[in-house]
């Protein structure tokens, strides 16, 4: 069987194949670009829905009133009043309690793991602590409501059944792994030579940690704190379950109070029908929440970039 092969045909065939190949080569980047733009579309979607409905809200309620008024009674039929301050005080207070737990314990855990623990101990302990970060927040909410609050009330009788303290503490526990692992990363990237130099000068391990390692890793450590705060502000289920829904402007952590996130849950699962002012207030609060967490995250990114010391 003899088959004649024409070189011309072969070239044509190859060209056709190449055309197809080049076609794929040209379309693939556009396809991938389209996929990549979904993430931008998501942001655009979030910002535009929040902005639009927030705008509708501020047609009914003055923006100054929203930030200066102290009474939050969105559904009151006598005289509805809108103010973000009670929600802000709840958010700030609970986040503060959370950070009072998460920062000292997270940082000291990071120091222990990075500076003191042997390789084996670190290998064993680190994943277990990270399990804490993988537990769904609804589980923490259940834990705060059914175990921690009753336990705390043994010691603090004035504590209400829903309060700011218990969800704050539990949220702090949830944030420990975040602070610990980010701070530990920062400390680990401090070069060994710096530690050894200090040790050779006669410093104790503690002094090396406090005067050499921490100052050198400070930007990463602070970034971990800021990210922790941002996480606390955005946490929803723990506070929805365990801190109640009182919208009072108070700084008493034994009382029930509501955070911005819990307010969003209350309104979406509650009675405010689309089109009412109370419904739009939801978006104004969500916009504030989005804005605060965004600022925090960008700030964390900024400090860890700006003050990162390159070794």
């Amino acid at each position, binding site marked *: 069987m003899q088959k004649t092969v024409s070189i011309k045909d072969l070239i044509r065939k190859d060209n056709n194949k190449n055309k197809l190949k080049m076609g794929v080569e040209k379309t693939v980047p556009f396809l991938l670009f389209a996929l990549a733009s979904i993430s931008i579309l998501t942001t655009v979607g979030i910002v535009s829905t929040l902005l639009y409905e927030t705008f509708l809200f501020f047609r009914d309620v003055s923006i100054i009133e929203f930030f200066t008024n102290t009474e939050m009674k969105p559904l009151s039929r006598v005289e509805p009043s809108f103010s973000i301050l009670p929600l802000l005080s709840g958010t700030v207070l609970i986040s503060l309690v959370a950070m009072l737990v998460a920062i000292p314990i997270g940082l000291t855990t990071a120091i222990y793991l990075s500076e003191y623990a042997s390789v084996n101990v670190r290998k064993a302990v680190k994943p277990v602590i990270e399990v804490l970060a993988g537990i769904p*927040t*609804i589980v923490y909410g*259940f*834990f705060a409501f059914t175990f921690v609050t009753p336990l705390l009330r043994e010691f603090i009788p004035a504590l209400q059944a829903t309060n700011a303290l218990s969800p704050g503490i539990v949220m702090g526990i949830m944030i420990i792994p975040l602070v*610990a692992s980010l701070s530990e990363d920062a400390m680990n990237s401090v070069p060994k030579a710096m530690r050894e130099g200090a040790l050779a000068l006669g410093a104790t391990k503690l002094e090396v940690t406090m005067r050499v390692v921490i100052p050198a890793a400070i930007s990463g450590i602070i970034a971990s704190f800021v990210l922790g705060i941002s996480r606390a502000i*955005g946490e929803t289920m723990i506070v929805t379950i365990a801190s109640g829904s009182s919208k009072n402007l108070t700084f008493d952590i034994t009382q029930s109070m509501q955070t911005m996130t819990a307010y*969003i849950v209350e309104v979406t699962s509650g009675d405010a029908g689309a089109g009412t002012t109370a419904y739009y207030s939801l978006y104004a609060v969500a916009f504030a929440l989005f804005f605060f967490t965004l600022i925090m995250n*960008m700030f964390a990114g900024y400090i860890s970039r700006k003050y990162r010391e390159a070794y």
Partner: protein
Amino acid sequence: MKELALNSNEKTTQKQYMNLAKVNRRMTARLLINNVVKYLFFASTMFGLVILAFLMYQIFSDGLGWLSMDFLTNRLSTLPERAGIIGAITGTVWLMFIVGPVTMVLGIGTAIYLEEYAKKGKFHSFIQTNITNLAGVPSIVFGLLGLTIFVRMFGFGPSIIAGGLTMALLVLPIVVVASQEAIRAVPSYLREASYGMGATKWQTIKNIVLPASIAGILTGVILALSRAIGETAPLVAIGIPALIVPIPSSITDNFTVLPMQIYYWTIDSVLVDEYASMAAATIIVLLAVLFLMNSVAIIIRNKFQKRY
């Protein structure tokens, strides 16, 4: 530094070298503090572990009694003795079926675009910053996005498709970042060898880069899935009804998932005392599923991870 300064002061005024007793005292104190603090740090590290143990103990002692085959296979009911979580389990599986493929396509596509195609410039860093920031947006805000766009605008209602798409957007940054890291870890000589053989860019990506990074990508997808099935807040926002007895059978069906069931049983424990234990039993199931998924992720990572 202070101590040194002090010593040199002493030296000049008293014309004397160091006071040995004083140095010893200071040295002992420093070492003592060092040791005490070391145990303090250790104790604080243990704090997290103790809390974890306590949490597990409480939940298991509360919920283990309710865990039975009937509880796992019965449908939801308002009566504790009849209630089961098969509907929530099925709903969770359905949710994964949406979140998995959607995040894989979007996440891997975005990562390839960013790592292989996009010119490093303003636009590249814009997308990158955008993804980093999306990762930090509170989940409840994603819930509002889902409520406004998928539930209301598209008219999906609180269905599997609406919940799944909302969750997919929420966990997308996890997949993107994991895929980016996996793709970046593929050494450039592999790519160059492929180009050298005459392969085109897309052929190189398809035949060399993706197979080499698939373990890292899959690990990211599994982590994203385990985040998605534990999230509650976005689903609360899109308005999942409290009592859904039937088992969902299509993506347009309304559904419930394990965390939603935990949520409703926890706040309803005032109506029926047993609900609290049922919530704890559901938590055990949820944690078991998460543990399983994370184990799979670790196995994949160890089995497929190639060292270059």
